[in-house]
């Protein structure tokens, strides 16, 4: 089966996905919502990270988080993504894995 070579697809999301992420991040500004759906909010943050190219090491410091519970949640998410895309991935693969998580989580919630 043929796979798309790296660099053939733009990292940018389509307009609808972009709007969904933006609206979700707006909702995550609410402290109560953030505490209830921390994983969803952090996954959305990973999706909009400005990471480009190959060789992105999946570790929580990518997000510059200060709260320990945020760091722990980010580590759990990144461990999950590592299983799908590897410990060192390209930026697009990481962002796509994050949006995939957001979609699956939203589908389960709504």
């Amino acid at each position, binding site marked *: 089966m043929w796979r*798309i*070579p790296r*660099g053939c697809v733009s990292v940018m999301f389509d307009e609808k*996905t972009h709007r969904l992420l933006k609206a979700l991040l707006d*909702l995550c500004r609410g402290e109560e919502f953030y505490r*209830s759906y921390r994983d969803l909010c952090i996954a959305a943050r990973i999706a909009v990270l400005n990471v480009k190219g190959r060789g992105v090491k999946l570790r929580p410091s990518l997000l510059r988080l200060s709260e320990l519970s945020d760091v722990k949640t980010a580590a759990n998410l990144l461990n999950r993504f590592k299983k799908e895309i590897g410990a060192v991935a390209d930026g697009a693969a990481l962002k*796509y894995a994050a949006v995939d998580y957001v979609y699956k989580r939203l589908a389960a919630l*709504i």
Partner: protein
Amino acid sequence: MKALLGAGWEMYWGQPPRGVYLLKEEYMADPADVDEKCGEGPVVVYVAAVFDTLNVVYGRVKPGVARCPVATFTRRFPMSRVRHAVKTLVEFAVSVDRLPLFQLNPEVIRFAGLCGEYPLVCEEPHVVIQRLAERAGRRPAVVREEGRGGGGWLINELVKVLTDLMERDPSYVEVVRRVVEDPERLRECYV
């Protein structure tokens, strides 16, 4: 491939028929980029569900590949089975090619009547977010209050105090590190 798709699919070497694509254009590779890599030996694969008036095509490259070998798997369906046909393509894309759902073209999903099964693909973002906000508002009071009066609030406050201390006096970083590494050591201080 035929085994993955099920019975009735035929393969030919060549471009897929004209039609609407299952994936959003943004997530399909540019044929020129793919053509550059043809020396590495890839085969571009398309899967096309053929109807009398319309074809639905799944492929990860926009049409127009000139130099790479192209294989197309095709099967004719009556229009009454559009739902089944498109679902076969979606399942192939998601389970075999492991594509995320957000890359699916909502128009195709809507046309096939599959919005009930893939609601997030069809729904407008503001509707999804509104439902999520409503759900968050409906969470039981006990859960919502946990942050104010329960252990969660206390831990958050402790983390804030410790963060503040560490910023003012870096020697606290070492103290916190030691406590995290061996919490029992803290207990010994009070015995």
